[in-house]
């Protein structure tokens, strides 16, 4: 695991306690190198979102430290401005149209408006929403809202992309298309991606590494390196090694949560 590549995200013995009571993360230790695509698997409520939010500087560790590009996340945000987050809920601004929602991060960063608009329309087309540029969020279906949110993150062309169950509300076909698009962008732009999912297939298909977590308190139970070739084709899903990985991940997931009824 010791590689010379730059480490993008580093969790060091992170604890996160809410309200002095709910231990969301405990002794969380993880380093993610540049260009990795790490999927987080874990039961509901185990702290995946909490971990991602900390990377984005949206939460403070109660103990331990989180570093992003070698900085405190809040510093990093101020300096590099190279991070995007697909939140678990779409989190769109209701008073902005679809297009304007996607334009938001570009607007905040500043620059040529025409370029921005082109880029925004391009990503919206990619997620299949080019006919809804002028629609307001309330006029969209659940999956469409999530896709706008994805488009918003991708339009910003971040170096570090955090995705919290981005495809959970999408049908299998849309999901596959977007998975392929994501991998494509990831490779082209040399992004680092942290990706939360409950879908083991998705995790294996996308990631270079899977982080499996257990609940109560949220701990990292195992790390699985996915040694499948890139670019990945849909056909890989029938590959034996793929199935092996899926089984392994499922098993780790289950064993990490042994003995619990639910959560």
């Amino acid at each position, binding site marked *: 695991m010791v590689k010379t590549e730059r480490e993008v995200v580093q969790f060091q013995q992170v604890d996160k306690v809410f309200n002095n009571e709910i231990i969301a993360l405990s002794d969380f230790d993880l380093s993610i190198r540049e260009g990795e695509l790490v999927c987080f698997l874990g039961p509901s409520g185990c702290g995946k979102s909490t971990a991602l939010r900390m990377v984005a500087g*949206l939460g403070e560790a109660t103990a331990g430290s989180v570093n992003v590009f070698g900085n405190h996340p809040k510093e990093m945000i101020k300096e590099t401005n190279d991070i995007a987050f697909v939140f678990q809920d779409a989190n769109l601004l*209701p*008073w902005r149209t679809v297009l304007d929602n996607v334009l*938001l991060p570009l607007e905040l960063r500043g620059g040529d408006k025409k370029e921005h608009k082109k880029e925004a329309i391009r990503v919206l087309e990619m997620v299949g929403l080019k006919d809804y540029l002028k629609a*307001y969020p309330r006029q969209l279906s659940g999956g469409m809202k999530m896709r706008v949110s994805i488009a918003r993150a991708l339009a910003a062309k971040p170096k570090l992309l955090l995705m919290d169950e981005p495809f959970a509300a999408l049908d299998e076909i849309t999901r596959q298309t977007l998975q392929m698009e994501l991998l494509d962008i990831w490779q082209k732009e040399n992004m680092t991606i942290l990706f939360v999912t409950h879908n083991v297939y998705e995790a294996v298909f996308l990631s270079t590494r899977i982080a499996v977590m257990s609940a109560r308190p949220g701990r990292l139970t195992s790390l699985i390196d996915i040694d499948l070739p890139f670019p990945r084709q849909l056909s890989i899903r029938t590959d034996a090694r793929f199935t092996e990985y899926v089984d392994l991940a499922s098993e780790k997931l289950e064993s990490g949560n042994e003995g619990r009824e639910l959560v």
Partner: protein
Amino acid sequence: MSMPSVEVTKKQKLLTKKASVKENNVWSKFKQIYLGPIVAFFIFISIWQTVPVLLGLKHYILPKPTDVVNAVVQDWGLLWPAVQITVVESIMGFVVSAVIGIMVSVLLASSKMLERSIYPYAIILQTIPVVAVAPIVVIWFGAGFNSIVVISFLIGFFPVISNTLMGLNSVDKNMDDLFTLYNASKWQRMWKLRIPSALPYIMAGLKISCTLSIVGAIVGEYIAGIGGGKGGLGYSITVAAIQVKTPYLFACGIAAAMLGIGFYLLVSLFAKFMLRSWHESAMKVEK
């Protein structure tokens, strides 16, 4: 292959059906919207007409609507110019309240420290009796129009500030996180997040303020005098009171109230327009 055309006719059908339904509904819509207010108005007027008769109140105590109408007709030449003056004063007062109110709130909301330090003085401005500061206002702004506008402002700005601040501090946490993440500057956050999401509160504040600005203009004339200019409703009311022209006094009061309703409707319309595309209070939800 024939599907698309079927599709089109069907859609056509739906749309035409909708249109015809609309036409049929004009009356029922009228009933729905206007019947209530009209009935209420007649009830109100009837009660008002009968109460003085029943209680034996003379017209100089509580004039009947007919007395008031008479007074309006008779003194229209006095009432109309007064209304015009008050309209101008209160619109000015309202605009100043709105602009300064929103600007100050935005400023205060930009820093907790600022808010804590300066907000109390906004409350002071609101609560300190206008009578106490009137001389200073008159000395600084001159008797008449300017002072009246200032007093109208003093009375009308606080609801804007109070509501706007509440709104600016009610931003959805998740959206706020989004802006933090994208490293939005303080002012970007203000313009693109806090102000839009405070709009419903701002609009509610403006609705209160617009009626208060009329009260302010009337009180202003009372307190700061009319300077060299002609008097508005405040002046008319004072004179009418002294001259025991109670019906005319009521006519002035009702004129003020009607101005109030007019202003309120305008501001409501504006609020609907501003919030129409996204806020529950204004948008038409199609189900």
